[in-house]
């Protein structure tokens, strides 16, 4: 079983991201389970969401404490939330940032047993006109990154799910996922 944890701020789409990702993995034949960790609902508040993927039916129904992969939709979130909590040895951490892996590793002292990936999802979202410049919708871009880094969802299926779920600009949102998927080197 693979456990993925998304971190974001309310309004960035971390909650909907988990469902879209699970749907894509489901269409690829996996058993899936996804849910947001509910908290105080307001823009900017830290939110987490969880995805479990497996070949056999998933029975565990609780929060994810030892994720294999973590996706952080916002770098500044890491000032208040420890997004690295519990990452399994050999896991991954993908961060939305304009900084390089080395830079962010140094700045934040991220020296645990996990591989770090960075992608400028904000830039991609702004270029594609997703959300506003002050509040870009980065979740669809980060979903593409998740697919690439974790290798658990097919990008075409993911783009399909993103387009279906997007309340507006379905093609641009799917495009965002594709761009980040191709931008990341694993």
């Amino acid at each position, binding site marked *: 079983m693979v456990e993925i944890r998304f971190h974001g701020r309310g309004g960035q789409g971390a909650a909907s991201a*988990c*469902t879209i990702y*699970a*749907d894509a993995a*489901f269409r690829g034949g996996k*058993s*899936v*389970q*996804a*849910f*947001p*960790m*509910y908290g105080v609902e307001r823009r900017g508040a830290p939110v987490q969401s969880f995805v479990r993927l497996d070949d056999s039916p*998933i*029975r*565990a*129904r*609780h*929060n994810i*404490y030892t994720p294999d992969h973590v996706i952080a939709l916002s770098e500044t979130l890491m000032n208040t939330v420890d997004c690295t909590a519990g990452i399994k040895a050999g896991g991954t951490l993908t961060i939305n940032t304009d900084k390089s892996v080395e830079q962010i590793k140094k700045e934040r002292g991220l020296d645990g047993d996990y591989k770090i990936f960075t992608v400028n999802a904000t830039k991609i979202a702004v270029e594609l006109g997703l959300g506003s410049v002050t509040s870009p919708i980065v979740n669809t871009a980060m979903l593409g990154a998740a697919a690439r880094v974790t290798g658990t969802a097919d990008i075409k299926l993911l783009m399909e799910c993103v387009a279906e779920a997007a309340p507006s600009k379905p093609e641009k949102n799917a495009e965002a996922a594709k761009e980040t998927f191709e931008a990341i080197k694993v």
Partner: protein
Amino acid sequence: MKKVLTGNHAVSYGAMIARAEVVAAYPITPQTQIVEKLSEMCADGDLDARFIKVESEHSAMAACIGASASGARAFTATSSQGLALMDEMLHWASHARLPIVMANINRSLGPPWTIWTDQNDTISRRDTGWIQFYCESNQEVIDTMIMAFKIAEQVKLPAFLTLDSFYLSHTSEAVELPDQKLVDEYLPKYQAETDLDPTKGSPAYGSLTTDQWYFELQIKMQRAMEQAYDVILKENDLFKKVFGRSYLPVEGYRTDDADYVVFVSGTIASTIKDAIDRARENGIKVGSAKVRLFRPFPKTMIREMAKGRKRLGVIDRNISYGSEGAFFTEIKSALYSQSEHPEIHGFIAGLGGRDVTVDSAYEMIRLVVETSPEKDINWQGAKL
């Protein structure tokens, strides 16, 4: 057709496929998506139902009572404070013998204000005369929605099904949508026993009854609950034939040769299976028994499940203050008349949404296997 759905949407699809005719509900976290989806379905013409926007949960149940008494298949959904607000009407619906179906998202009661899960909201309504199901997966939710109408309409008692808040209500997983044609064959149109047509000289319902006959009316209601148990088993057999899925009132997991059995309900029944597998790998002969049906309480199956075990455990995600966990009480009571009285642990876990992980479940299994119970209440996962 399989679709990834949240528990809430599984309820909505269930109401749609079961062809609910009147939906009257008031929004409350974490149930809101049920009602939003249903109103979309009505607006899109996918559900041919009258959607009544009421001003409170008390009104929601009152509207369902009126609708059901008039011959419409009525449905509502609520949670926690909303369920508490409609309490008076819950008793009315059951005493009036109206087959209303309700989905309740198990959310803890305030104060303090909370939106996370435990079973106290429905457990504290156990005496209302409603048939009560506790679900562990979204598939079970949609299937139970359909069966609940069929069962309720045969015995003329209302029925509710529960979903843990967030761990089912907001959890997306793949659900097989039952085929509409098969559901239409399985679930015929509702025929009301009551008739409120004034042109047919309709009688008055529910008016003053002296001590001469009130008692006997309640006996009839209890008999209906007893009959409901047989109907539930019969309907489960039929559902299995038509749709290929079965949900027994008490269902064992790896209990055939188990020395120890832990009784569970709700999503803990799902989570504990991973812990049971782990225990089995460590050579421990333990199984879990999910109690899906709370009213009528499945005494016979509990007795069967408890036979020949070295020790038992019960995990309650609720508490009756001043006593103990509700499933614990009911299970011990069912076993009282038996010749075997194995030791039985009572755990209370997960109140107010305190997470119950595979590790927590494993710890409770370990206590059942390795220790004798000292107290009736064993708090698990609390900061003491």
